[in-house]
């Protein structure tokens, strides 16, 4: 088991889920379908994969300032990632979680971790604690 210590950006419940490490920046608006949680941007390397219930590792975001709205909608629809790991705090995206908390909805934990570490987590089953510790359990291949 490998352990990664991260900084908690926004608190949320502990979780266990498989990692989906994005290998390119993503625009949530136009990039993720809020009705399904599937990456819809055909130009994105992880196009067609679902972020719902995954530990989503986001190296960077690009594009529209509506990212928070998509994330809020994903939370409301029960299609949010189980946890979000960002290379750096992103106000546009994390606002979706801040507002979801204000609305009284259960929001995923958001963590900060250097994106250099992302590749080591890709596809693995991860245990994430409330304190932000990520433990890698197994070497499951990335789902297609």
């Amino acid at each position, binding site marked *: 088991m490998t352990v990664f210590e991260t900084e908690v950006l926004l608190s949320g419940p502990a979780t266990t889920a498989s990692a989906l490490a994005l290998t390119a920046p993503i625009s949530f608006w136009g990039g993720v379908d809020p009705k399904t949680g599937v990456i819809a941007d055909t130009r994105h390397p992880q196009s067609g994969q679902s972020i719902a219930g995954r530990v989503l590792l986001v190296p960077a975001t690009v594009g529209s*300032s509506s990212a928070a709205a998509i994330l*809020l909608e994903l939370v*409301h629809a029960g299609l949010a990632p189980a946890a979000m790991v960002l290379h750096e705090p992103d106000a546009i995206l994390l*606002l979706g979680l801040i507002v979801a908390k204000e609305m009284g909805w259960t929001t995923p934990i958001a963590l900060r971790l250097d994106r250099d570490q992302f590749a080591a987590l890709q596809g693995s089953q991860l245990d994430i604690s409330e304190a932000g510790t990520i433990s890698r359990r197994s070497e499951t291949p990335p789902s297609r």
Partner: protein
Amino acid sequence: MAMRIVAETARLMGATRLIPIVSAHIDGALYHGDSGTLFAERLVAGGARTAVRATLNVGAIDLTGCSRNRLPPHELAMAGRMMTAYKALGCEPTWTCAPYQAGHRPRFGSQVAWGESNAVAFCNSVLGARTNRYGDFLDIACAICGRAPDYGLHRDENRRATVVVDVSQIDDAFLASDVAWPVLGTLYGRLIGEAIGVISGLAFRPREDLLKAFGAAAASSGSVGLFHVAGATPEAPDEVTALHWLPPVERIVVTDDMVRDAQRRLSTADRADRVDAVAIGSPHLSLDEFDALRRLLMGRSVVVPIYACTGRHVLRILERDGHRRQLEASGVIIVADTCVVVTPILPEQPGAILMTNSGKFSHYAPANTGYSVLYGSLSDCVESAVAGVPRFGGAS
């Protein structure tokens, strides 16, 4: 609730204080699902009102009735409730992504909270006002509080260009054409990511609509909230001023190959033998751009519809001058208050091809409309719509 949202964001971003703002542009009134409507109505129910001037970005419904959308009944009702809620909060019903051409032009150096990526880029870069890239919810929260977290582009030291993007190798005639700027913007956004750059080596001062097209494309392909153009934008009378008199971290010389590659990648269609619709107006068309459209149409009718997206500030003048009727008679569908990539206006048609002169439409149309894209100049778009098949190479 608004103040908690502003304060929590300040904590997250490491801002040590809040600063007063003089205006806001609100991107939050576009329906993406019921959650956003519920949030806006929660604010209204709490008695919130905007404390500063706040214009509204596009909604999901064309309230002017110029165009129709295919939203199902539930979505249509929730989108309408959302637009109503934002008006109830005291926002101006401008419904445009080009508020800076609808009379909302904050002064150089003033602190504001603007949403909508192209409006942010324009506000910072062309007007020299100071805003971060505000997302949905934070924009309205700041407008209600009249305050914003003091970090990022609100602060002088973070507005410095660190990368020089030199376009002096590129043909002047190309740089002067309308087709060049969405291409350059796309390339710039991809090269620069989140850094701030200064475009250097231009032999002329690009007009406002070109900078608007550049910023929109750059903010689609990268996280561009501020760019400088030496000799053209207010914080860059020249390259060294934009660099705050420090050496650049990087100097990128743009080549013809890079430009050609960026232009090619703006088209996603794997064939160029048909066109099912033409869409222009992302960002929303200005009066000048409508004039150019009318000049290129020369009174001809189109075979393939041209969806021309704009704000009601322009629509009013088109109506006053009789141009709306003229344009509609020739087959142009004016879309006001909204646009074709944010709400389903284009007919549902698997395998269909959309032609556009907008870098932003080119970026978002495939995922949001299902249409693949052919990118061309405004002239190409008009000639293709008239001919009913793609036509490239017209003067622009």
